[in-house]
């Protein structure tokens, strides 16, 4: 003969199980909601640019905060990305032309070091370039693909972004606009 729990204990147990189930369900729904929000969140294109520190392939380190007062061009790229090749020459040419006023930062996204170094050598890239370890910077900027280019004004605020490869003349036009913005 199976012994039954007292009626009060049974009722309390039932309430506890019910409450825990509802709590677990709510937690799961909250987690799903958070995930959906993260996935569909818009990319930042104004306001303060998310800060980051990047170590280059040469071992030098820079941070966005210490570049305040200068126009900064942040370009996300990868060696396996075909459209990145289309804009590589223009980026390098602009970085040389505006070396005194504009800082170029290449953020190598989800790439092999070997492939990245080959790409840098192939296009003779001289501006600051480093791997985005753990794709943390890409997550902060919510990039969807590569290439993507973010424009940061002298005040450290984002002044727009370009999804996809830059067309000829587009980058210089934007740089002049940012340099004029005092």
């Amino acid at each position, binding site marked *: 003969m199976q012994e039954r729990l007292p009626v009060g204990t049974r009722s309390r147990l*039932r309430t506890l*199980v019910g409450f*825990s*189930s509802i709590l*677990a369900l709510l937690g*799961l729904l909250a987690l799903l909601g958070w995930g959906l929000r993260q996935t569909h969140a818009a990319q930042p294109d104004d306001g303060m640019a998310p800060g980051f520190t990047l170590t280059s392939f040469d071992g030098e380190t820079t941070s966005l905060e210490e570049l305040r007062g200068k126009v900064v061009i942040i370009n996300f790229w*990868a*060696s*396996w990305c075909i459209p990145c090749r289309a804009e590589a020459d223009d980026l390098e040419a602009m970085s040389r032309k505006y070396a005194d006023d504009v800082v170029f930062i290449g953020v190598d996204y*989800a*790439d*092999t070091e*070997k*492939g990245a170094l080959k790409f840098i050598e192939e296009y003779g890239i001289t501006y600051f370039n480093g*791997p985005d*370890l*753990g*794709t*943390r910077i890409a*997550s902060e900027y919510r990039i969807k693909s590569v290439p993507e280019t973010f424009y940061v004004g002298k005040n450290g605020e984002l002044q727009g972004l370009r999804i996809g490869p830059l067309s000829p003349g587009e980058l210089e036009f934007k740089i002049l606009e940012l340099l004029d913005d005092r």
Partner: protein
Amino acid sequence: MRRRLLIVIMTMIAAGFAAPAMGQEPAPSDDQVNEIAGDLYCPVCPNTPLDVCETLACSEWREQIREQIASGMSESEITDYFVEQYGERVLAKPRRSGFSLVLWILPLVGVGVGLIALGGVLRTWRREQEPEAANTADDSAVSAEMRQRIEEELRNLS
């Protein structure tokens, strides 16, 4: 004397041929590479295991794994390298530590709560059916008694 010298020279020549062959390790096979790549996701193609992904990027990553195996890195060292480079999302199975532990525990908790709830529902159903069964049994007992009385009454009438 001359014979000994010949043997020494022959041995040195043989050793010279054997040394590079012994020092040269065979390149890791595709199976060895895919064994590790199968536990990793492509960092850029959504939900695609690295061992079956056909993009150029994935083939570069597989080549990198091959080089890492050849350099003597263990499976966990290679996996750690990938996590450091591309984040935890490259792991096919989340780690059993930190926040990822929730992903392992949550389904078990869900199943546990589900089983408890199912047990509760089944118990309630059984309890509801027991009095009905008892009532049914009582009804049949009364009916038999009634039937007997009716039969007796009928007999008396006749």
